[in-house]
């Protein structure tokens, strides 16, 4: 029994001695900081530099940024990121690439607001948060996905070099995504809202159809990115019976939209952090064509040609809109252009003086009112088979989906002049 006591006590003592040694001497950051220290003394030229290098403390280093609710300890290992002499060193001792740090004060901004990852962690595995078994919420972002986080403080058009965000935004706003998806109080409500989609928990939203190799290689194990990419490129991966159309996007296009959507994150950045140019920016008004591309094109088709199938819908496909002139009883191209011009200029067709100069004015105005009404209040898609399922697509209530009357007027103006006067009139 004495021997058992002796052996167990010695083991306890050894373990208790090992624990502080591990804590204070054997952590990852000790290795890196020691290496940096030796580089510092090798680089030192003056006596002062030499003594500073000798005194260089090996310790946990952190950036505490209460404004952004984060504590970033990344600089415990990436200790030389502000030292221009370390450009050629290997990670993690290298200088921060580019001259981003010139405009971005590390002390004020930290690391994870741009890079994501777990700022509080001290082990690279946990800090980068890429371990797929853990499903971390915010794994570190590699290029080109890191462009997304620029959007936390900047607007798209004020920064050069955000190709993916720009391209993604352009695609997003020209494919009619917001006809069904809502984004910051605008857009239809037929499909899941996209505000904060970048924060979708990997526990809830994860890709089903991507092979794990692609997930690892392209997305660095980031399930949120892979999920967004999959949903964009292969809408029917989940759920199978989705009403979302397959836009036949190339990998590159889908990647661009993924980066753009990854920028939709709910971080509340204090005003003092926002890029100054933001404040001065004026809200630009979109043209009718742009608005149509942003909100309507997905269902009503390019150029308003219609043609998207709506399951169990009485008319089969979503109505075409390029026959608007005919629907409004406008008979000549000149009249269509005249009305379109008035609408674009923001003229009130019903109360203008002199009154609208057009044949069958009352009929035209009545139809105009009816069409405005349908767009503003939306409509229910009539079922083909009364027993069948509700058609998945229907006209949203645009007055609560972010379109003002003037926006709708602009869209109508755009549609009026689309009428194919030279061809035979459409089947409707």
């Amino acid at each position, binding site marked *: 029994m004495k021997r058992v*006591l002796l052996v167990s006590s010695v083991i306890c003592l050894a373990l208790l001695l090992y624990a502080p040694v591990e*804590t*204070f001497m054997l952590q990852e950051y000790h290795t890196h900081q020691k290496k940096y220290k030796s580089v510092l003394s090798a680089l030192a030229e003056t006596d002062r530099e030499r003594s500073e290098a000798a005194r260089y403390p090996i310790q946990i280093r952190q950036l505490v940024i209460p404004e952004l609710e984060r504590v970033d300890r990344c600089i415990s290992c990436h200790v030389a990121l502000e030292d221009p002499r370390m450009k050629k060193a290997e990670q993690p001792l290298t200088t921060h690439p580019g001259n981003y740090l010139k405009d971005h004060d590390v002390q004020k901004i930290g690391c994870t607001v741009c890079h994501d990852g777990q700022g*509080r962690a001290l082990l690279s595995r946990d800090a980068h948060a890429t371990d797929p078994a853990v499903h971390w919420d915010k794994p570190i972002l590699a290029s080109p996905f890191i462009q997304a986080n620029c959007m936390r403080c900047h607007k798209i058009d004020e920064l050069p070099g955000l190709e993916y965000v720009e391209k993604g935004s352009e695609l997003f706003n020209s494919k009619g995504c917001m006809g069904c998806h809502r984004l910051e109080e605008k857009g239809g409500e037929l499909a899941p809202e996209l505000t904060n989609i970048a924060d979708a928990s990997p*526990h809830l939203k994860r890709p*089903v159809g991507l092979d794990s190799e692609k997930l690892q290689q392209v997305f660095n194990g980031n399930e949120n990115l892979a999920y967004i990419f999959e949903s964009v490129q292969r809408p029917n991966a989940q759920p199978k019976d989705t009403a979302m159309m397959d836009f036949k996007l190339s990998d590159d296009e889908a990647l661009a939209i993924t980066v753009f959507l990854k920028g939709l994150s709910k971080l509340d950045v204090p005003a003092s952090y926002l890029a100054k140019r933001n404040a001065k920016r004026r809200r630009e008004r979109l043209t009718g064509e742009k608005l149509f591309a942003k909100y309507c094109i997905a269902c009503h088709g390019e150029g308003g040609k219609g043609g998207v199938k709506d399951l169990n819908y009485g008319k089969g496909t979503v109505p075409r809109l390029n026959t608007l002139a005919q629907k409004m009883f406008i008979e000549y191209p000149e009249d269509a252009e005249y009305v379109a011009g008035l609408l674009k200029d923001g003229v009130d067709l019903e109360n203008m003086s002199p009154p609208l100069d057009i044949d069958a004015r009352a009929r035209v105005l009545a139809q105009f009112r009816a069409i405005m009404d349908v767009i503003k209040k939306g409509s229910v898609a009539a079922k083909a088979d009364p027993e069948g399922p509700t058609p998945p697509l229907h006209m949203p209530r645009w007055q609560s989906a972010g379109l003002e009357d003037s926006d709708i007027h602009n869209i109508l103006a755009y549609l009026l002049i689309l009428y194919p006067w030279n061809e035979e009139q459409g089947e409707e």
Partner: protein
Amino acid sequence: MKTPSMEKAASRKDIHDLPPNTSSSSASSSGLGQLARNLRDLPGNLRQAVLRHGFPDSPRTRSQAVFSSLFLHIHSVRTHRWTLKQTFTLGLGVATLALFAILIVTGIMLMVYYKPTEAEAYQSIKDIHYVVPGGRLLRNTHRWAANLMIVGVLLHMARVFFTHSYQKPREFNWIVGIVLLILTFALSFTGYCLPWDQLAYWAVVIGSNIAGSPRELFEALGWTQLAGIGDLQREILLGSHFVGNEAILRFYWLHCVALPFLMTAFIGVHFWRIRKDGGMSRPEDILPDELDGLPSDKVARTSFQDPGKTYTLVCAVSDGSPQVDKDEENTVQSWPHAFRAELSVAMIILALVLLLGIFLDAPLKVPADPMVPDNPAKAPWYFLGLQEVVSYSAFAGGIALPFFFMASLALIPFLDREKFPTGRWPRQKEAGIIGFSSLLAFLSVVAILAFRVKFGWLRDWNPGINQLWIILVNPGTMLVMFFGLYTLWVTWRTGSTRLGTTAFFCCFLVFFVVMTYFGTVHRGPNWGFYWWPSQWPG
């Protein structure tokens, strides 16, 4: 081995050379002279005040030390040699106590850094893990010790049951033991919730839903006016309608104040009862060769016809004097023999916990997210057997079944009053019953789980079924019913209540182990069946 004896000699000399008390010193002419002498004598006097009986290196001083120290006097001065038999106690009680001590020490230290608020709890655990010097080790050892303590308490209970040690006069201490078991579960569960990660948050949600489950029963019965009882229980637990800041503070308070206080008090009672019930249980018919190899000393074999012990206080009663050993005493000095054995167990446990703590990190998932249920949302491992039943009915699995099991266990000493050889492991017929019951229980649990996985249960066959049926008829209640009938059958067939309770106890243990294993390994997302966690989707 010269050094210790030399030290002993030296220390004895120190004691004998202690300066005499200076109170009668008349030579002192001035107060200052007296003060100077007092200062000179300070080390010696201080030592005498602390040690009181001299350095504990002889049987006499050691006995005095045990007798007069608050902490040591939990032991009797002499310990029965049977108690030191390693194959009898297996050191499980001491191991559990050692784990509790480790938990108290590490827990108090963790309290320095832990912040019990929704916003800060998770981040403070992160900081404990990464930045607090030794924090990672503290948290890991705390976690490991907590898990091992559950195991230790259960094994200790099994040891006491199988060695017939709950029999009269130890019935009350058995009940105290059951209370300690429940407190251990409660402490562990409340601690599980504190990191406020996904694991913790959803465990609290499950726990609070169980507290609210009387609603399920009363609604199924149609007594809607009573359904509020469940909500009230839930609110008392959470301090709110939702799991939030109030809940975290309540769990913190339970974990760090209320439950440890109760635990310490009941552990005190537990030990006190061991002393008052005549020490640890032991057979009356110990054969000399059964004690071979155990420590012995000169007086161990002395037989006290006229007890040398005096019970100064308890003797003063009219109806007979308290029983003292009639046989040969067969005791040895607690110091060193019992103490050394206990310290060895404690040290082995400490080494094990440190080893686990240094090399295996306690889990910490992503921060709690009330919008995203962890799937599967699993309770801590020791509740997964119950969660299997909770998946049918929160009331049956969370309240009825645990209440039934704990009440039955607590009543064991009163349902079985037979005299089996106290302090001995089962032999012959009893061992046969243990083997057969365990096998039967194993097969029945596996069979019902396999049936459930293969064919589904009532709700799958008839989605509109009244929940009352499911509360009454689910694998948990079916097994309990089966165990009960089997216990009655064994009692009737063998004519022995001890063999009946043995059958029941084996069923309980096997039920706990198999259901826990099943819930841990074979239950995945949406509580579906999977052969291995690696097959979980995603």
